Each structure stands twice: as structure tokens, then as C-alpha cells.
């Protein structure tokens, strides 16, 4: 039996785990990280192979070994989802992500009170479970600044200490200083999108991305090869956790990463304290244990919830940290509305440059527009890039349904795709979803993973009146933009049949009230003070923005609280 003792054990070495490892290690705490997958290096990403990395998802969980199931409602039987969008190695999802790095709006942290103040309580759908975050933008701003400068984010400020700046996102929350790096180079997608949206009176800008526009901290600038979303960066210009926080953690000499280690149980004692974790080793051995003073759970949403449920004991019969019965609830994801534009008068060459969400308008996100006559609340980030967020021909053929009247196979499809592959762009409405208490993750009773553990099961259907109206609104806006571009063909993708999109959030939500939340704003569980959950599972509401930068900012805030408060006085960081 392999048992090790340490100060802190972190489950999952992704965006959150990497930061906590570096920060706690720097503060002199001994940290062991347990990572389900391998630790790869920049040189491993040399093969720029769309089939291997994008299509077959080499950097993501194998859906047969690690199934996650879904059913639209409790009356149906769950089946495994065909692909998963999170990571499966040290660095987590940041290895293959598009590196889109947003700060949330100020009102994203107070959806409930903000909505009631502007539109009245009746504007919030009765069956939703919208609450305010227990943390404000102002409180998180120093940590947003910290992560942007720590790893290198490229962009242009649109709101510098309240001063609005053209060319940046004029809807962004006020930032104290400019981005550390200027925006990435513009391409024909950006030129086309900017011209059309400006003509319509909107405010386009280069999407802030954790991709280096100039050399930074010893790493080179992006070469615009285009093998980006879905791929590890072959030159290390993408600011993934793998090339930023994890090397920093190594440099503390207080961090050890154990790879191919699948944690299956959080151990607790009779006093209700977490004592450590047990994991399966690379050889399948089950008798491996880490004993720790602090246990930090930082994998993806599914596994945070599953691990807490799997770790139930007589003292915690409903799973750990679940005295509220809110564990696994309020699951959200981003619902993708998509519109395509194909041109006869120009090439777009969508395969060039960083691929995900290249240019954006924020005019219809959050509460940046008046909802009073629209019949729904909250909005969507609208961006342009390749279909499937990756520009190779496989991704385009798989993710772009042809326009109405054109078949998706045969001579008609061949001629369409041969003509327009280099002459199209896609727009994505990355749409906020409200939380609903009966959108849940629990344990699948039938399907197990390669370690014999019950698969995480989602019961989820986004097709609620508020979300359906919003999707229609966003699609109409994108069709309008496509027409303003002067495209020959403008068409929309059919909506998904209720399936979850990407960027899952919720499941261990944070709150001010222990009766309706799982953790406090520091990710500390209300029930077990030495057990923390850090990641997008703690988000009470989702925003229309990609979650990673906010996960990272929260990780810095939690690390600060652990170092400055918890270490001196172990116990609840917030008295309920």
C-alpha cells in the first residue's frame, strides 16, 4: 500500500489545480497533484494532425473508457454522449482550448439582483434557480489582472478605469490596466466581421486570448498556423497551464505531480474532516492513498460532483458536502446558436490563425441591451471563426451543415464544399443559460467507466422558454450580420435537441447561504472546512463568456485565502 503524507492534495492538474499548486507551493506548503492523464510537453504537439487531435479528440477523455451519459429528463434512459470537450491530461482543458479569456461583466456576478432592479422580479423565470454570486467583480478584479499578466493574454482594453476605448470591448467591466500584450493579428474573418457589425452600429473587437501576440516570459509569439482549438500548441505560444502555472509549481520544489492517477474516493474521518484521497494507479492498483491536511477537488464539473457523491459515508450519506442537497444541481452549459456565411466575392481562408472566436461583439451579451420587451433575460457573446472553432476541412465538413437545398453528400455537396471551404466563415452565439434546479449530475446506475466507477449522468434539457426565445433572438442577429457582410449564402444551423453544449458549469455552486449552496466564495465546502472545490462547478450562473479566466481568477483568490487566512486559523473562512 502506497501512502504518502502532504500538506495539500489537489485532484486534477488543470486550470485551477495548476494555479493552486504554484501558489501554495510558493507559500511553502507541500503539494501533491493527482492527474488522471499523462503530462505532455510542447514537443508532443509537433504533429499538426486534424484527424488525431480535433476529430478523434486525442487530448480529451476517451468516451468509451470514460463515458459521461445524458438524458433529457428522468423518464428516459441515459446514453453516453459522443464527445466531451474537457481535457484529459496535465494542463486540463487549457492544453487544447481556444484560449479565449474573458473577464465576466459586473452584472454577471449579480444576475438576480440586477435583473430585479431593472426589470422586476417577474422577469426571472419561476422554474429557474438564479442567485447572485457571493463575490463581486470588484473583489475579483485583482485576480483577473493577476492571471492575465501571469500567463500572457492578448487584447485591447475597452474600459480602462471607466474610460471607454474604441477598438476594445466597450461593454467590458472596468479594468485597472491594459492587457499585457496587444491584440493578435487580424485576419479576413475579423475584417469581414468588423465591417458588417460596424455598419450595423455594433462594437466589434479582437477577442482576448491567452495566446501570445509577442514573445512573453521566454515563450514565442503565435505563428498563426491555425492548428489551435483542439490541439496543443506546437511552439508553446498558447498560454496553457502546461507551459505556465505547472512549470511555476515545479520551480517551488514543493510540488509533486502524480500522473495516470484516478482518484476514486475522498477519505473522511468520524469527526467529519477530510483526511486525504485514494486513487487507482497507472497499473490499476487501488491501494494508493495520499493523506493531507487540505483536500482540493479541481477536476472538470462531472468529476467534482461524481467524486463527492462517490465519497459518501455513514456520516455523509448523501455524498460529501451535500447537507444542502444542492450537490449536482443547477447544471448549465453554453448553448450554441450558429450561422454561416459563404462568399462569391472573396476568400476567407478560415484555416489561418488562432481558430476559436476570433472577433466578437458584446452588444447582445449579459444585460448590455434592453430586454424589457423581449420576453427573456441575459444574452450571448457573438463571435466569428471557423465552424467547429477549428479551421481544417474535417472540422468544417463535420460542423457546417450545407445551406438549405444543398444535400450533405453526393455531387451537390462536393461542389458546395469544394467552392466554399475557403470562402466561408461561421458565427457562434455562445449563449448564457440560466440555472435550473432539476438540471443535474448524478451517478449513472447502469454505465461504468474503465475503472469500474459509475459514469457521471446528466439529466438536462436547455429548451426552456427563456432560453428558446434567446436563441431565436441571437440567430436573427447573426443572420442580420451575415447579410450585412454581403455574403452570397447566409444560413443557420438547426438547434440541438436539448443536449448539453460545452463549458459545463454548476453542480457545486457557491453562495452566501449554506442551505442553498455547496461552497462559499473561496470554494471551501460549507460542511467540511478542509475540503475545497475549485472550478466552473462553483459558478452559480453562467454568463455568455468562456469560463476559464474566471476559473483561474477564482483559483488565485482561493489560494490567497488559504495562505493568508486558513493556514493561520484552519476552519470556516466565512461564518454563515
Amino acid at each position, binding site marked *: 500500500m502506497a501512502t504518502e503524507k502532504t500538506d495539500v492534495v489537489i485532484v486534477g492538474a488543470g486550470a485551477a489545480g495548476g494555479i493552486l499548486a504554484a501558489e501554495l507551493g510558493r507559500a511553502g506548503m507541500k503539494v501533491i497533484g493527482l492527474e488522471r492523464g499523462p503530462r505532455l510537453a510542447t514537443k508532443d504537439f509537433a*504533429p*499538426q*494532425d*486534424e*484527424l488525431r487531435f480535433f*476529430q*478523434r479528440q486525442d487530448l480529451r477523455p476517451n468516451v*468509451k473508457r470514460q463515458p459521461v451519459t445524458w438524458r433529457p429528463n428522468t423518464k428516459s434512459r441515459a446514453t453516453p454522449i459522443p464527445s466531451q470537450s474537457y481535457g484529459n491530461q496535465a494542463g486540463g482543458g487549457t492544453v487544447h482550448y481556444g484560449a479565449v479569456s474573458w473577464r465576466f461583466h459586473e452584472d454577471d456576478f449579480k444576475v438576480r439582483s440586477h435583473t430585479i432592479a431593472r426589470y422586476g422580479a417577474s422577469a426571472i423565470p419561476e422554474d429557474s434557480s438564479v442567485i447572485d454570486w457571493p463575490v463581486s467583480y470588484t473583489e475579483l478584479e485583482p485576480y483577473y489582472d493577476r492571471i492575465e499578466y501571469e500567463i500572457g493574454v492578448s487584447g485591447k482594453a475597452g474600459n480602462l478605469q471607466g474610460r471607454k476605448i474604441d477598438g476594445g470591448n466597450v461593454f467590458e467591466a472596468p479594468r485597472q490596466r491594459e492587457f499585457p500584450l496587444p491584440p493578435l*493579428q*487580424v*485576419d*479576413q474573418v475579423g*475584417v469581414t466581421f468588423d465591417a458588417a457589425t460596424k455598419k450595423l452600429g455594433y462594437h466589434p473587437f479582437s477577442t482576448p486570448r491567452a495566446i501570445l501576440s509577442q514573445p512573453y516570459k521566454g515563450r514565442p509569439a503565435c*505563428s*498563426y*498556423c*491555425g*492548428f489551435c482549438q483542439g490541439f496543443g500548441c506546437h511552439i508553446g505560444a498558447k498560454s496553457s497551464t502546461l507551459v505556465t502555472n505547472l512549470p511555476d509549481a515545479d520551480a517551488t520544489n514543493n510540488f509533486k505531480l502524480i500522473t495516470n492517477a484516478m482518484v476514486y474516493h475522498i477519505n473522511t474521518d468520524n469527526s467529519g474532516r477530510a483526511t486525504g484521497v485514494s486513487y487507482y494507479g497507472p497499473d490499476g492498483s487501488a491501494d494508493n492513498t495520499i493523506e493531507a491536511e487540505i483536500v482540493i477537488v479541481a477536476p472538470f464539473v462531472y468529476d467534482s460532483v461524481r467524486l463527492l457523491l462517490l465519497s459518501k459515508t455513514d456520516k455523509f450519506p448523501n455524498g460529501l458536502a451535500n447537507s444542502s442537497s444542492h450537490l449536482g444541481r443547477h447544471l448549465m452549459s453554453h448553448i450554441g446558436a450558429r450561422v454561416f456565411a459563404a462568399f462569391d*466575392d*472573396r*476568400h476567407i*481562408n478560415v*484555416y*489561418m*490563425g488562432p481558430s476559436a472566436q476570433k472577433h466578437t461583439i458584446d452588444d447582445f451579451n449579459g444585460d448590455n441591451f434592453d430586454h424589457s420587451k423581449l420576453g427573456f433575460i441575459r444574452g450571448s457573446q457573438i463571435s466569428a471563426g471557423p465552424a467547429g472553432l477549428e479551421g*481544417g*476541412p*474535417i472540422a468544417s*465538413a*463535420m460542423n457546417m451543415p450545407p445551406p438549405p437545398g444543398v444535400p*450533405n*453528400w*453526393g*455531387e451537390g*455537396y*462536393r*461542389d458546395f*464544399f*469544394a467552392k466554399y*471551404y*475557403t470562402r466561408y466563415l461561421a458565427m457562434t452565439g455562445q449563449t448564457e443559460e440560466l440555472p435550473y434546479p432539476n438540471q443535474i449530475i448524478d451517478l449513472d446506475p447502469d454505465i461504468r467507466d474503465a475503472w469500474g466507477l459509475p459514469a457521471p449522468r446528466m439529466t438536462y434539457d436547455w429548451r426552456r422558454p427563456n432560453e428558446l426565445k434567446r436563441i431565436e433572438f441571437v440567430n436573427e442577429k447573426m443572420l442580420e450580420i451575415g447579410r450585412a457582410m454581403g455574403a452570397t449564402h447566409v444560413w443557420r444551423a438547426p438547434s440541438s435537441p436539448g443536449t448539453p453544449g460545452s463549458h459545463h458549469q454548476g453542480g457545486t455552486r457557491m453562495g452566501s447561504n449554506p442551505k442553498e449552496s455547496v461552497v462559499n466564495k473561496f470554494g471551501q465546502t460549507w460542511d467540511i472546512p478542509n475540503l475545497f472545490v475549485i472550478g466552473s462547478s462553483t459558478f452559480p450562473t453562467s454568463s455568455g463568456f468562456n469560463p476559464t479566466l474566471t476559473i483561474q481568477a477564482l483559483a488565485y483568490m482561493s489560494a490567497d485565502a488559504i495562505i493568508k487566512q486558513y493556514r493561520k486559523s484552519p476552519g470556516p473562512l466565512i461564518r454563515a
Partner: protein
Amino acid sequence: MIELDEARRAFLLRAALAAVAGAGIGTVPESLAQAQPTQHQHSAQPAVHPHPSSARGFGAFFNDDDAATVAALTERLMPGAPGKPGALDAGVLNYIDLALVGAYFDMQDFYRRGLNSLEAYCQKTHKESFVKLGDARQNEVIAALANGKATEFDWPRPQAFFNTLRTHTVEGMFADPIHGGNKDFAGWRLVDFPGAHPVFSQADMLSKNAFAGDQYIGLQSRAPRRRA
């Protein structure tokens, strides 16, 4: 550089179809036989190669009949034409054949059963194997797969079989040639994708014209770039 013309495609299709035991004129789809009256004389000769799989674009997994069917199916999904490389030109059959003993080894029975069901459906509906139907009939059969109306399927369901065939045809057309398809960059020529260029310049990215680079860059091979 290969010229992707009718004669070339007819040759490729014949090569795949010659796999069928006792291969002869009857194995060539009606439409192709009609379109290429001077070509099918060659295919009347039985295969005599001591290694019957060699140079036919498969040999790792499919039996001769199934190879001929998959070749014909994928060519209907992504048909070749003069100046427009199709599935046969790209070696999509070879891609799928290799994948079924590699990354997709757990889909062997999916293909076996799907192809058996397809044969049963074609026999029931047209009293012929899929490969012997003309283009129009083959298109009708594929449409019946895609819309789920084809009978004789249990598992896989006809739509699932269609979707997988389409996905694997796309992969075989456009994946790097290292995986056994996209032969001589046929798929990339069709759509004008230049491959894994390590750098695109600001001028490349701002251009409204076709990319000016002069090479297709694959993982193990390069070729002068000339669009099909």
C-alpha cells in the same frame, strides 16, 4: 502529379471492384460501364495477381465483396468528376480499411452488420447487390439510409450507418495522407486546403484571394500545390 480524369477514376473503381471473386464486367456499376464503354474490357479479365489485395486500395480488413461495396458507397457520398477528386481518387477505402484494424477496431462488427443489412435491403428492393446498381439507384439507396427508411437494418440503424460512412468518408478525404486516405492530397486539392503550414503571414491572413503558398504540407510528404 496525377491527372484526375474520368479514365483515372474508372481505373481506380475497377481496381477496387476487381476484388470481387470472379470479377468481370458485371461488377462495374451500370452507369460507369455505360459511361466508359472502352474501359470495362480490361475489367473483364479475372484478377490474377498472386496477392490479390495489392494495389487495390485495401487489404487490412475488408473482404473482397465488402471492399467493393464500401468503395462504391463512399464514391457516391463524395463522387469524383473531371477536376474534382472523389473518394476513389483519395483512397477513402484504404483509409477505412486501415482504421478498422487500428483506431476504429471496435467498429468492425458495425461495418459487417451494416454492410450485410445493406445487401439484404438492396436484394429486397432491387434484386441486386449495391455495387451492381447504377448511380441513380445507388443514390436512392443512400438516401434511404440517410432518412432512415431503408429496411432490413437492426443494429446499426440505417441513419447511424449513413452518418458513420459520411464521417469516415470526410476523414478519408481530408485527413493527412499519413492515415491512408487523401492520396496525393486529393482531398486537399478538391477544397484548396494547403495543409500544415507552420506560419501564415499578416498578408496571407488579410488576403481576399486564394492562399499564395506553393506547397501542400503533410506530416510525411509534401507536393507542389496545384488545385484540382
